[in-house]
């Protein structure tokens, strides 16, 4: 798979992690991750990219499958009380961490309690609904919530369980250097920001994966990732939409594409300037030809979005419609509203989460100016952009994306429609109410609430959903792998042909 060329015999200086697989089918996989993971302590660390490591090395109560379904992992089953405020999880029996420590309900409770004890932790936000956690017996954990929450189990898919005794003995700092979990892989070597090497845990309680060792390496440049795969330095790497075609045409690589769980949208500050006028907000949506973006710019590697939830996400509904593309109507609306060319700031991040964000932003700018808007395009790096979003500093419209790692609509809803949400400029009581309401109901009735909320949002023009991008990967031609909607890596089901 990897490193067709390794200078052997050059001692020192490098870790010659030569190819383990000398046989026909390689058993080592080198995957590129687009950004540096943070700490390897799953209690403290919860950023998305780290989950690609934690999914392999730790167990979570539940897991979300490649197609977004909820599935048992450490927990075999879970039940809620009637008002959805108390959840009991029953654990798998006989699970041990790689150092032999048994994983029981105590460990689960410890992991959650530690996270809940530190509001500054990255994982704390996922558990904002939790009031308390306790181990009922060895194999049962009980979560008591502050308010009803029907999608709660999905949030537990993000929380990794650590062996409590080991964690306490080692202390958090030491644990982060040599983490120990109960997952199908164990840490082999951690070089911060360079590579995260995992080897198969032969004592894993579940089904043993085929791949023997995994190396996750941060590679920040798109081109480098593609070339890494083409030259054999990498086995699988996320790539940009423009690169798909050329990789497909090569024998030395194959392309995986999967529709993601995220939506790229325009945030609209409906509380300031001309955008307080709903007609002008509507005109924005009407002016943008989403299909031109998805088919042209993104080479068909995206689908036009009609709501702020992606189809893969729980809560998505076909029934939510958006007004479509109608530049003439947009012009009319502008005329009606008496828009006189007041410049509208348009912020976007030049790099980072949205591939081709600059191109997308420029297309949107051109479309908007086409119908008569005056757009002041402002690029910034992803972090500055994020800070601005978080600070609710956007004055006009801005490009953003939301991809719930729980693959459930609850997370984006909180952020987009509830009062504390970063993107929520409208502060509309109705959206707040609906967003809270969906937590207390299940199944179809929950879906109905979602439909109401998202339709209402579209009518008001609080957001302009743009498209659902695909996650694209270049990979070794022999790799047998299913990409996940959330863009994370899970190689437990993967093998080489």
């Amino acid at each position, binding site marked *: 798979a990897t490193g067709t*060329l390794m200078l052997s015999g*050059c001692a020192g200086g490098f870790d010659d992690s030569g190819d383990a697989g000398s046989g026909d089918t390689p058993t080592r996989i080198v995957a590129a991750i687009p950004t540096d993971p943070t700490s390897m302590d799953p209690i403290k*660390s919860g950023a998305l990219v780290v989950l690609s490591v934690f999914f392999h090395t730790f167990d979570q109560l539940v897991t979300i499958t490649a197609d977004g379904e909820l599935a048992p992992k450490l927990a075999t089953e879970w039940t809620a009380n009637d008002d959805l405020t108390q959840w009991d999880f029953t654990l798998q029996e006989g699970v041990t961490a790689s150092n032999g420590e048994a994983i029981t309900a105590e460990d689960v409770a410890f992991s959650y309690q530690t996270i809940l004890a530190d509001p500054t932790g990255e994982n704390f936000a996922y558990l904002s609904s939790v009031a308390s956690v306790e181990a009922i017996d060895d194999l049962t954990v009980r979560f008591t919530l502050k308010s009803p929450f029907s999608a709660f189990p999905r949030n537990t898919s993000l929380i990794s369980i650590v062996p409590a005794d080991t964690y306490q003995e080692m202390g958090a700092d030491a644990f*982060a250097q040599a983490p120990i979990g109960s997952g199908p892989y164990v840490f082999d070597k951690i070089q911060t920001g*360079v590579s995260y090497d995992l080897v198969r845990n032969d004592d894993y309680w579940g089904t043993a994966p085929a791949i023997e060792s995994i190396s996750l390496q941060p590679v920040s440049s798109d081109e480098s990732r593609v070339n890494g795969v*083409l030259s054999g330095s990498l086995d699988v790497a996320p790539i940009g939409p423009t690169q798909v075609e050329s990789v497909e045409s090569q024998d030395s690589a194959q392309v995986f594409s999967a529709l993601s769980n995220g939506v790229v949208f325009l945030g609209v500050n409906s509380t300031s300037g001309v955008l307080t006028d709903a007609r002008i907000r509507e005109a924005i949506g009407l002016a943008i030809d989403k299909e031109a973006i998805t088919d042209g710019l993104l080479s068909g590697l995206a689908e036009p979005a009609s709501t702020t939830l992606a189809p893969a996400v729980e809560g998505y509904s076909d029934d939510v419609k958006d007004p479509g593309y109608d530049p003439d109507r947009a012009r009319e609306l502008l005329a009606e509203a008496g828009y006189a060319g007041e410049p509208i700031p348009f912020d976007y991040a030049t790099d980072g989460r949205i591939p081709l964000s600059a191109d997308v932003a420029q297309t949107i700018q051109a479309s908007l100016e086409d119908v008569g808007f005056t757009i002041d395009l402002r690029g910034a790096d992803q*972090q500055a952009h*994020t800070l601005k979003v978080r600070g609710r500093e956007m004055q006009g419209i801005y490009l953003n994306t939301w991809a719930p790692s729980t693959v459930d609509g609850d997370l984006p809803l909180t952020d987009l429609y509830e009062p504390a949400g970063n993107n929520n400029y409208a502060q509309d009581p109705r959206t707040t109410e609906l967003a809270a309401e969906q937590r207390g109901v299940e199944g179809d009735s929950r879906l109905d609430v979602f439909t109401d909320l998202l339709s209402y949002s579209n009518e008001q023009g609080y957001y302009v959903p743009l498209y659902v991008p695909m996650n694209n990967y270049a990979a070794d031609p022999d790799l047998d792998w299913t990409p996940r909607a959330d863009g994370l890596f899970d190689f437990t089901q993967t093998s080489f042909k």
Partner: protein
Amino acid sequence: MTSVLHQPLPGRASPSVGDVLLFIARRLALAVTTVLAVVTIAFVLGRATGEPGALLLPDNATQADIQALNSSLGFDRPLLVQYLDTLVGLVTGDFGDSYRLRESALGLVLERVPATIELAFWAFVIGLALAVVAALTIQLTGSRVLRAIVGWAGALRQSVPDFFFALLLVLVFSVLLGALPSLGRTSYASLVLPVATLATGQFVMYLRLLDAALSEQAGQDYVRTAIAQGQRRSTVLFTRMLPNAIVPVLGMAGLNLGGLLGGTVVVEVVFAWPGLGKLLTDAVSQRDFPIVQAGLVFVALAFVIVNTAVDVLVRRIDTRTAAA
């Protein structure tokens, strides 16, 4: 016989202990002020760029969470206290933990240092060595054609930005020929392309400087003296002209190596080379101030040390400057 021979020996070949101490003291003062100034600038800019809390927490973290994180990182203290804290950290070598990676910032920086030094060192050494060889060849053969070819090639190389040149190298040597790894720092082979990218640029720069300096020396009278004694032209070139020509080049080299040690972000990005430059640029944009501070102190120190070393070297080669 008159006075000329009776005059006292002017100056001394080797500087006195006092001179050396004075030199060291001056250098130290310069180093300390430089580092201090760099840290201060970094602090001011850092505080102006905003608090990092919002960047550290996931999208659905609330404002309250963010506030809590920011204050737990110490951002709620008065600026002066934060600044003094930074200075204390500077003195004790404790820059705190990286906000993002939650590890010792200094440790993280030091972890990257070998990779950076490795890249900078080889690029520098190979670039300089090749430039010396090429410049000497040009002088020895006196070939206008050779000078022209090297000059043109150099101009072409300098017209291609590093990132593009690197990409072309990768396309040819990794993708097309499959001869070299395109990224990472896993084997000596993975050094080849990044070093080639940087070294070619260095080569062109040093070749220009050296060629000019050597041509300058070639017209000097002492060269004629040596030739008139029957010395070989090559001997004169190696033992007389080269040391004389290298002195001005060394000064430039010091500045330049100092800069290289500050990291070569573009090359590091293209080759996913785990160097300091990428760590630092990421840290700046992520407002990971402990890393920024630790990294800048390293860069500033490296710069000062390299240049002091060059100064010492130049003073050794050319004692006239030491006397002045």
